[in-house]
């Protein structure tokens, strides 16, 4: 999610902070992610919705249209449509057209499989549709190890079709991993050469990402490298505001430096379940369902979970840290799915406190809900993956060693805060 940047804030006085306002929630989300289907032709190892097979309870075309009607009434100006691969829904283009006719702009994420020259031309002609092609390596080796054999060519072909059709500023969306963070300049050059815009986001231990988090998430050194790169080149690079935990290094990054879950963002999944954010598909973050009386608007307005998220938050063990104002304790989903308390440090805390806390956590972190993975294995690129960064630091290695079951103990030995170890109860 990029909020168009807080530079977009226009104030005659310039005193009140918008972030304060955002924390207590808005009348409607600014940024809504809508996963239209769990069906997907790929099986990316880090898929945050564990997609693959279609869920038979998927919202029908009529139900999707009703959701769009609601979004129009609530003045949700645009939705980020994803999946799964949303374009595999036979009614995908129909729904995009319906949304546009009802003043709801669409930005959709795709792996590119269905972006033919004809589709690219049609998209270019539409004012209210934006496209984001996923790519997780600037080379086929790095990309295909994550997204599957042939997926690099698939994405590149789609991008060339978009560029040739004259679609200016489509997005190339990259999840940052240990293997591709060294390719940032290459990604930027690729985007520039196609007249596209680079978008990089944070790997989350959500969905199948939970299974590969330990091997794919950035090392401490790489996080610093990414931060420095963003400070130097961040002007024209979108980040979905997903690296606010790196603000702990000092200078805040462009965009909204806070967690917007349930406050300014949320997720509608293919069966209509509403979660606090796209990275939190778990009962603990389930706010309701759009099929219930009152629909999506009632969930957004009345959910107890959202009310809690919009209330005052305890900084917990982080409250006394000098970086807390900058990093806000990091990402809720990243903490939850690594087994950390929500009011403690992010697993990738730039001060290393997350690594220390992880050493105290039971190996069994909560599992992401709903596995829609293909039951058959998908051909994955084999062979060595070139890694351009040095060995893991010793402290990372130490925390992956089996640690004794210490669930429920304070995140730090001296943590006397009554909320230490508190996790959001299932609704």
């Amino acid at each position: 999610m990029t909020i168009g940047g807080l530079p977009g804030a226009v104030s005659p006085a310039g005193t009140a902070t918008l972030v304060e306002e955002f924390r207590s929630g808005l009348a409607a989300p600014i940024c809504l992610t809508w996963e239209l289907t769990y069906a997907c032709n790929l099986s990316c190892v880090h898929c945050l919705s564990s997609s693959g097979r279609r869920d038979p309870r998927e919202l029908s075309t009529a139900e999707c249209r009703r959701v769009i009607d609601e979004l129009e009434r609530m003045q949700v100006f645009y939705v980020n449509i994803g999946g799964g691969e949303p374009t595999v829904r036979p009614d995908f283009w129909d729904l995009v057209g319906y949304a546009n006719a009802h003043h709801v702009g669409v930005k959709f994420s795709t792996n590119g499989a269905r972006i033919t020259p004809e589709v690219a031309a049609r998209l270019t002609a539409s004012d209210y549709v934006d496209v984001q092609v996923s790519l997780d390596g600037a080379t086929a080796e790095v990309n295909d190890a994550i997204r599957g054999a042939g997926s690099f060519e698939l994405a590149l072909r789609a991008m060339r079709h978009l560029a040739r059709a004259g679609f200016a500023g489509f997005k190339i969306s990259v999840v940052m991993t240990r293997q591709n963070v060294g390719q940032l300049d290459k990604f930027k050059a690729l985007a520039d050469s196609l007249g596209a815009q680079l978008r990089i986001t944070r790997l989350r231990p959500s969905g199948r990402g939970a299974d590969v988090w330990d091997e794919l998430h950035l090392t401490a050194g790489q996080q610093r490298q990414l931060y420095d790169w963003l400070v130097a080149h961040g002007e024209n690079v979108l980040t979905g505001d997903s690296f606010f935990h790196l603000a702990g290094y000092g200078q805040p990054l462009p965009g909204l430096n806070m967690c917007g879950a349930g406050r300014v963002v949320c997720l509608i999944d293919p069966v209509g379940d509403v979660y606090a954010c796209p990275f939190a598909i778990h009962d603990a973050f389930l706010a309701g369902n759009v099929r219930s009386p009152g629909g999506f608007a009632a969930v957004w307005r009345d959910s107890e979970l959202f009310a809690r998220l919009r209330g005052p938050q305890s900084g917990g063990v982080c409250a006394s840290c000098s970086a807390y104002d900058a990093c806000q304790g990091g990402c809720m989903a990243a903490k939850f799915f690594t087994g950390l308390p929500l009011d403690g440090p992010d697993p990738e805390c730039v001060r290393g406190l997350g690594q220390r806390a992880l050493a105290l956590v039971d190996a069994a972190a909560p599992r992401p809900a709903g596995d829609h993975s293909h039951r058959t294995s998908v051909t994955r690129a084999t062979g060595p993956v070139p890694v351009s960064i040095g060995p893991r630091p010793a402290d990372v290695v130490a925390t992956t060693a089996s640690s004794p079951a210490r669930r429920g103990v304070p995140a730090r030995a001296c943590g006397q805060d009554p909320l230490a170890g508190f996790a959001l109860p299932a609704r």
Partner: protein
Amino acid sequence: MDAFDLDSAYRLHPQVSVRPERFGALLYHFGTRRLSFLKSPALLSVVTALDGAPTARAACAQAGVGAAELPAYARALATLAASQMICARTAA
């Protein structure tokens, strides 16, 4: 781009939608795909008054903006004009 002029007529850009919020309003431009935030209800009143007022200055007066605050509002409106959230209202 023309400089913002308090004594000209302005309007909300036809591709911009306004969503009132507790702090003021959210503006979205469907053409540029940019969001903007009006950080005060008074500024929202000014923006809403633009369409029906002969000049931006008149819209400010109509929304109850005093002379002392006028320069701040002029700056805010200039920012909105620069990002095409509002535009000059020429003979329609």
